[in-house]
């Protein structure tokens, strides 16, 4: 079997996910021996338009992004997204809850240093919405996380090469968190999105006593009603709850807009 040709592309993102791959430990780098990387801006200069697997980082923002991602889709046999930006729109997607004008005002007027001149020149602010890749083109697989977990990336590549379904769990972070014998952060007076968030990060945050912010998106059957009740019980206001729900999971974007409209 000839090695599949793989190309990496970045859109609106911090490139942290590509870095997570560049920084893969040596053992995992061997995965890379199983594929031919033909394009990877973070790690190499050459670039080729002939690839089988496209790996996409970042959210879709500008019209030119839409054109570019459609072209990539047409070329690639398999299109995989990496990271929360591509998977869900990323934290930048929070901007969708306000109008471009409101966002402009928030960034440039309320803070010293911003001038009218920058605002007008900055045409990017006139984009109506941040979008996840699968809102624009078909995505064959999404590796979630902000940033992605390098080991999971390697496992997904291996499964792809084996022709096996991708090992991305559909149970909540609590499962990994419990197996890791963490003290539940709820017991420490914090709150956590782990019960509704898709596992696979090996409960990276709660292992360190931090709250899970839900960067991997929701499991396929989240019990958001029960989760909301719990957050309320732990003293969160409706606003706080909504913030938790929307940080990474745009499924609640409309709910957020409605609540803001009602204020």
């Amino acid at each position: 079997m000839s090695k599949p040709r793989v190309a990496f592309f970045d859109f609106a993102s911090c490139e942290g996910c590509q870095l997570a791959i560049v920084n893969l430990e040596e053992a995992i780098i061997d995965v890379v021996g199983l594929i031919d990387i033909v394009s990877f801006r973070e790690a190499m200069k050459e670039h080729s338009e002939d690839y089988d697997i496209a790996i996409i980082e970042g959210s879709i923002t500008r019209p030119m992004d839409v054109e570019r991602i459609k072209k990539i889709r047409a070329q690639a046999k398999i299109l995989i997204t990496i990271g929360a930006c591509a998977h869900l729109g990323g934290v930048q997607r929070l901007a969708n809850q306000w109008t471009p004008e409101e966002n402009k005002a928030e960034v440039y007027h309320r803070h010293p240093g911003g001038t009218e001149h920058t605002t007008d020149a900055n045409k990017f602010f006139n984009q109506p919405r941040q979008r996840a890749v699968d809102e624009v083109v078909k995505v064959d697989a999404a590796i979630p996380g902000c940033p992605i977990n390098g080991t999971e990336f390697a496992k997904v590549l291996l499964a792809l090469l084996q022709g096996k379904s991708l090992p991305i769990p559909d149970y909540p972070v609590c499962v990994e968190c419990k197996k890791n014998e963490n003290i539940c952060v709820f017991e420490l007076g914090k709150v956590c999105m782990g019960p509704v968030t898709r596992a696979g990060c090996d409960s990276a945050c709660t292992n360190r006593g931090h709250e899970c912010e839900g960067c991997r998106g929701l499991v396929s059957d989240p019990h958001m009603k029960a989760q909301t009740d719990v957050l309320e019980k732990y003293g969160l206001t409706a606003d706080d709850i909504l913030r938790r729900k929307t940080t990474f999971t745009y499924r609640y974007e409309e709910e957020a807009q409605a609540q803001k409209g009602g204020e």
Partner: protein
Amino acid sequence: MKILSKSGFAAFVNALIQDTSRDVEGVKAKGPKFVFGPLDSASELRLDYDVTILPPKKYVLPQYENMMKFDIAQGKMVMTEQPKGKIIIGVHPYDIAAIMQMDKFYLDTHVDDGYLARRKNILIIGSNIQNVSEKGFYGAMGTSTVDSGYDLFITDLGDSYAIDIGTEAGGQLLGAACQRDATPEEAQKAKSINDGVAERSRRDLRVKPSSWHDILKKSFDSPVWKEQADKCLVCNSCTLVCPTCFCYDVTDEISLDMNTGLRKRTWDGCMLRDFTSIGSGEVFRENVEDRYRHRFNRKGMYLPDGFGFVACVGCGRCATQCVPDIADPVNLFNKLAAGTTALLAEKQLAPVGVSDLGAASGKGPLFVPMPATMKRVDKLTEDETLFEIGLDNGQPMNYQPGQFVEVSVMGIGEAPISISSAPGRDTFQLVVRNVGDVTNALHAMKAGDKVGIRGPFGTGFDTEGLKGKNLLFIGGGLGIVPMRSFINYVLDHRDDYGQVTILYGCKDPDALLFKDEIEEWDRRDDIQHMRTVDTCVEEENWDGEVGVITTIMPLVTFDPANTIGVVVGPPIMYRFVNKSLLSMGMPEENIIVSLERRMKCGVGKCGHCQINGIYVCKEGPVFNYKDVKQHPEAFE
């Protein structure tokens, strides 16, 4: 009973740590909580702990465990070596009781030899409960003390430890460290310290454990389940932290050489949706309340039925870890009790008792498949392929029609598949529908390729007992696959059976399996046969009926009272067929069904296949309708 000074005990523990033949694990602090973990020194031990986050089950059935390793190129599958032995210090009585339950479970019928090997190499040093946890109710469950299940048991007498020697191995471990025998007063003091815990650890449980069975039986349709389950996060924490929950999942992991790899098991739990999902899209416990109820039923009803003990030791961990606070058995049983005025019967419960680890032995590696080779691969339809397989050891498979095997594709996984050919040949046949990973990989195989086989497992059709009877076979879709083994057996021994009728229904003409054999059924005059398809395009070449299978049942002649109905098909089909047969006057005990469930292990360990308290892989898949109909999860 022996006495050891506190410094003597510390020296004893430090000596155990120095001796590297076994890892020494004990209770340590983790922030404001406690966990079992590797000990660097006796001074880390916190025997004043209340409860640990995870129970010591993590040593006998680890969160992640290697079951076997494989080498695809060499076609080799072997058990992985067991890790070093362990000494676990500070185990409370309720956790000792839980380990005794696990021993019984894992060494029952099919001995899990990996578990046994590991378990034999674990020594348990129990400890009295110095501080009762907030949610613990072991006093009410009778597990605040144990009189066996440990190698050594220490009780803190204040200035010294009383040490009870539970086993010979424990005595040897203590060896010279032991300073002197306890005086009768000291022994009495140790006893009363332990006995005193019960009173402090009852909470307000209002239903005795011996009545859990009865109240659960009476409460199957109680509104409490849904009320509670609506608050459930479906996080599965309650089963993961429970010392008496031991269901697991299995996955294959290939290494970067794309050739070698490991088959692993990891904790799973019945609160998760995927636990009971099968290829046809059916999820047997789709509603959260079904899963929530199953967890309690398993503890209070199913395991007591199957093993004689209540599978809750009152550690209170689930209660602590459930954020919406609905997992606590004390609250749940009190709620159920508040909803009923009925007098509750008591179930006779047997003490768990110690398993004789020395005497237990398996029939060889339970989870390592036998190497086998594809002899013939024959595509039957777009999605179904027949595989004829021979074991590499040259032995024929010894099985009953209706039994199944676990087929392994190294690096991909394992799937339960019914044997489709009649017994008595050197090779056996499987017919597999392409639905997922393993079945996909099988479909890519050709003659000469290697697979792994475990089994045969489960119950088969009673070919002996049914001799002389009239048989009505009703097969729907893939149900014809296991049924064919029995049909062909009957046709091989035609004179031994009475009237034989075969009804077969499938989706459309293209989905029809075994076309050649069906033509043979048409030709034979010693059997009746009809077939039907759900849908059929007008111009299609189809000589059978059109309509669901129940529409052709009245079209054949059989005497319902004197015929055995053999029903195999997807859940949606057997629900209707069984109803029709009953309404036609077939007695319940004349209906034989084969039920499909999610399966992983095939040998009654992983928990996936349970219908209420029945392990389908072990007690089925072939059942008499009369024996399973009272189980609400079987047909509803």
